[in-house]
């Protein structure tokens, strides 16, 4: 079974530039999450999708961050314009409908963003 795919793995940009990250969840996983993980900290939820609808985006800085999940499958997270404090690893995770048998999240390898 293929895991959660993310790209790019690494991205370096100047402040005020834009960047986009892509995530393809495990097939059949209805719930998709984007987390921001700043170095030395735990993951912080940015947005949660159920199929192609938003369940929770309360911590998404909507003035600069946007995310979409067209057709309820893959998702894109965009930052425009980027700030220095956006330097972090952006983790995508997915879970089956209702959490499945185990309730766990399945993570991708993450996209590391450096803003100079």
């Amino acid at each position, binding site marked *: 079974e293929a895991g959660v795919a993310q790209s790019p793995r690494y991205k370096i940009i100047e402040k005020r530039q834009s960047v986009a990250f892509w995530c393809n969840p495990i097939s059949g996983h209805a719930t998709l999450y984007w987390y921001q993980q700043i170095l030395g900290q*735990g*993951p912080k939820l940015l947005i949660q999708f159920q199929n192609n609808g938003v369940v929770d985006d309360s911590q998404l800085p909507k003035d600069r961050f946007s995310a979409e999940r067209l057709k309820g499958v893959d998702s894109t997270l965009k930052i425009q314009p980027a700030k220095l404090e956006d330097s972090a690893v952006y983790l995508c995770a997915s879970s089956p409908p209702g*959490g499945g048998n185990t309730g*766990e999240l399945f*993570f991708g390898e993450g996209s590391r963003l450096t803003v100079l």
Partner: protein
Amino acid sequence: AQTVTQSQPEMSVQEAETVTLSCTYDTSESDYYLFWYKQPPSRQMILVIRQEAYKQQNATENRFSVNFQKAAKSFSLKISDSQLGDAAMYFCAYRAPNKFYFGSGTKLNVKP
């Protein structure tokens, strides 16, 4: 509000020894899941062990076991016979009903 607290930012253990990582959580739910995830440096976060709150028996996975104290809202991870490959960040996580909350993590160093 649900919160997860890991009070040990960093710990060290000698290879082959045992170490325990602490985690407490706050919730008003009665049915939930608890997890320990491992994140090696620049590597993917993977599940180590999970516990359903309704189960009184502590979960075990090979060298990894938990001490789940529901009344105390405590969920510690014990790693026995520590190996060099156990060196990583460990995150405690709570799920209920369809939201996850993570602790700030404990960095585990394993000394040869």
